Each structure stands twice: as C-alpha cells, then as structure tokens.
C-alpha cells in the first residue's frame, strides 16, 4: 500500500507538470489545446536523442529537451494558437488536434514508431522503513512541489504573473487597462509547454517513450484540469495528486479500472460543479 501511495504521488507529480499548461491555456485564451502534449512527447524524445545519440548526461539532455520544447511551444503559439483567440471551441479543437497529429508524424518520421527506453539516471533506491523506493521518483515528486511553489511565487510576485491571473479572471478588463494580453498569453503558453516537456523528461525513465504517449496522457490531463477547475492552478495541483493517487491505489486492486476511476471522479466533480465553457 505504501508503495502504491508513493507511486500515486509520482503519477500525480507528472500529471501536475503536464496539466498546468492546459489549464493556463484554457483559462486565459479559451483555447482547448490538443497540441499541448506534443511538447511533452518532444521533450521525452529530445532527451533520449541527447543521451543516446549525442552522449550528453541525462540532466543536461533534460535541460536541452525542455528548451527545445519551449521553442516548439512558442512556434505553435505564434503560428496556430494566436489565430484562434476568440474563435469558437470547435475551431480550436480541430486546429490543435491537427497540430498534434502533425507533431506525432514528425516524431515517427524522425525516431520511428518503436518504444524507446531510457534508464533512471540515479539508479538507486531509498530505504523508507516500510519499503524501498527509487530515489529518482522521490526527486520527481520533489521537483513537482518545487514547480508548484515556484509558480505560486511567480504568480504572486511578478507583474507578468499578476497580469496572467487578472486575465484568467477578466480578460477584457486587462485590455481596457491598456495591456495587450496576447504577449502575456504567449508567456503563459511557453511556460506551459516548458513544464509539459519537463513532465516528458521526468516521466521518460518511468514509462515507454513512443510517438503516441502524448495522446494517452492528454486525456488524463483533461480530467485533471476539468476536476481542478480550468485556469485554477491550485485546483490543478490538488486534482493531479488526487487523481494520481486514485490511479495508483485502484490499479493495485483493479488494474483494468485504474484509469476508469479518473474519469468517474471527473464526471462526479462536473456533476456537482458544472462548468460553463
């Protein structure tokens, strides 16, 4: 059981890192971004390419992957997302899903379709008394917490953060105060892409890296964002860890149902607290 809890925290940490961008993108731009997890996939692949082909150490490869994915996120925002502001959700679904499919095909074209494994860069376990647990996974949980507090600090202490929070609440109000929101949306988008890529980098040694890894995690991230509240960063944090825990604990007793419960939980939350999109 203790192992399931720790594993749940790991899954929650990864889900949190990937979901923030989705939450921010919808909260500020009202764009449902199916392309979001392509940066997660790209992050994982660049890491593997850096470590395997270029011989770069894992953490430097991870840094490179995050930067490349952030650049990819910036390009997606400038070329596609920015044209979707104010458009109906249908357009945003179609356009961002197209970007996702194109991204997956590019990944397949470059790296092929077969899963690529990568080793845990630490390769040691910690003795937690009742069990032993990989130090790497503890580090993943710790990094997610660090991102959470860092993001809280960024939102509270910087003008960019305050403007993003204001725009999440009332975009027209920000515009009427003479502030072009698009620049800040782009920053939110790139931060979201960067964190999704970090999620991909950190998850790569835990899962199989394959071209469609983003599609699977995308559905879970939508569940996280809808459960936590779109644009609600603290809600996203709580929902990611609660749902991660559900996946892990239910998976221990009923493996086939581990992800079903996520969507059941999401449906229950939406039933109790409907959202207006």
């Amino acid at each position, binding site marked *: 059981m203790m192992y399931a809890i720790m594993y749940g925290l790991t899954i929650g940490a990864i889900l949190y890192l990937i979901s923030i961008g989705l939450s921010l993108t919808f909260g500020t731009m009202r764009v449902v971004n199916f392309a979001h997890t392509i940066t997660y996939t790209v992050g994982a692949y660049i890491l593997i390419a850096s470590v395997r082909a270029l011989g770069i150490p894992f953490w430097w490869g991870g840094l490179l992957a995050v930067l490349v994915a952030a650049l990819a996120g910036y390009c997606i925002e400038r070329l596609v997302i920015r044209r979707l502001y104010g458009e109906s959700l249908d357009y945003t679904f179609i356009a961002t899903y197209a970007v996702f499919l194109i991204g997956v095909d590019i990944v397949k074209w470059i790296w092929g379709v077969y899963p690529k494994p990568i080793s845990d860069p630490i390769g040691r376990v910690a003795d937690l008394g009742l069990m032993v647990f990989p130090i790497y996974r503890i580090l993943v949980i710790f990094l997610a917490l660090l991102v959470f507090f860092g993001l809280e600090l960024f939102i509270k202490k910087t*003008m960019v953060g*305050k*403007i993003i*929070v*204001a725009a*999440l*609440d*009332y975009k*027209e*109000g*920000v*515009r*009427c*105060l*003479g*502030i*072009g929101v698009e620049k800040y949306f782009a920053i939110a988008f790139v931060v979201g892409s960067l964190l999704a890529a970090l999620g991909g980098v950190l998850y790569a040694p835990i899962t199989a890296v394959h071209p469609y890894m983003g599609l699977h995690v995308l559905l879970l991230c939508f569940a996280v964002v809808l459960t936590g509240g779109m644009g609600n960063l603290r809600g996203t944090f709580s929902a990611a860890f609660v749902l991660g825990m559900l996946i892990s604990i239910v998976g221990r007793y009923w493996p086939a149902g581990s992800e079903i419960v996520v969507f059941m939980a999401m449906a229950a939350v939406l039933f109790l607290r409907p959202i207006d999109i």
Partner: protein
Amino acid sequence: MLKVVDVDVSYGHARVLHGVSLELETGKMLFVVGRNGAGKTTLLKTIVGLLKPLKGSIYFDGGEISGLPPEGLYHVGIRYVNQDKKVFSNLNVRENIEIAAFSSGEPLPQALEKVLAIYPKMKEFLNLKAGQLSGGQRQILLIGQALVGDPKLLLVDEPTQGLAAVVINEVARILQHLKGKVSAIIVEQNLPLVSRLADQVVVLKEGKVVRVLSSAAEIGNTALLEKSL
C-alpha cells in the same frame, strides 16, 4: 473632445445602434439614459473599442479612433468602467491598482494616493482580495483604477446599478468630486442623480438618439427625463 458620428453597431445580425451621434466637450459630464436594451452599454463598448462599429466614425481629440482596440485607447486617456463591477477578484485591491499603475507608468504610491483620495476607507481593504469587496466598494475601486495615469475621458457604465442607497450617495459624491476635472460619459438609470450631475443628457431608445437635453432647466426636470425614456 469626443465626437460620435452616425455610428451603427450590431451583434451578429441584430443591429443594436442605428446612426448614433453625440458630442462631448472637454470637462463635461454627459449622461446616457434609456430603457434596458436601448443600446447604452453597446455605445460605451464601441467607444472604448470592445465592439467595432459597422459604420460611422468616432473622433477623440481630433483623431479618428473608431475600431481601435481598448489597449491603444487606454494610452490616449480613455478609461472604461464596466457595468458588472468586475474587478480582478483573485488579486488583492492593491494589486488591482498596481496593474493600472504598471500600464499607465504612474508610480504605485501615487496611484494608491489617487484612489485613497476619492475613498480613504479603501486603505483598510488594500490587502483584501478584490472579489471579497462589496458591490459598492468594487465600483469605487474600478473608478479609482480608471483615475490612475492621465485619464482624459471616463466611460462609466451604470455606476449605481444594484447598490444600496447609502452606497449610491457615496458613488454620487465621487462623481460630483470628478465633475469638471475629467470628461465623462456615464450610462445611468438613476434619474435624480442624472439631474444633479449632468451637463448634457442623451436619451437612447431602441438604438437611436431620440433626445438631447443640454439646458440646466431641462436636465433638472426629472419628470421630463422620465417622460423622454
């Protein structure tokens, strides 16, 4: 200062404003009155750039501004106070003012001073989430926020709507304080208040200007105002 010439505005296929024209002189307070659905809010949103006119022109300080976005109009001195009393509810009161100070380039202490000058009690709420303010306090915060920087024209939409009588008096006092210091177009349904403060009244009906009252005698006559609606 501001001239609206023959402006038409529509939401999709529904035309809301039909050939609306009005003119505001510097330092004056123009009130727009009319029944619900007359197009008053649409008119303000069009002037501030949130809506684009189908036809017609809007001039501000001699230059045409029709169709320009609100981001740009803020920096020429046009401020909009929304009808719904929507503040940035997840930021505290100080941060709400700070954003306006950041955008206008005015130092924060000076911006805070301006807001506190119109409502000293706001000092107690500076660290409170703006979403926790009462409707009246939010309205005052929005007016204060609009005064940050160098406003030339205030567009205020229904400042007393939904407020208790005592708060209406407070908002009226603030508007009275601003009279002559800044030009303003105010949408308002409280006719006694309109009579007290207006330099000019424009009556809108079904998207058209049906009457313009400019003399003090006409404006002071609330019965006449009521009849004009």
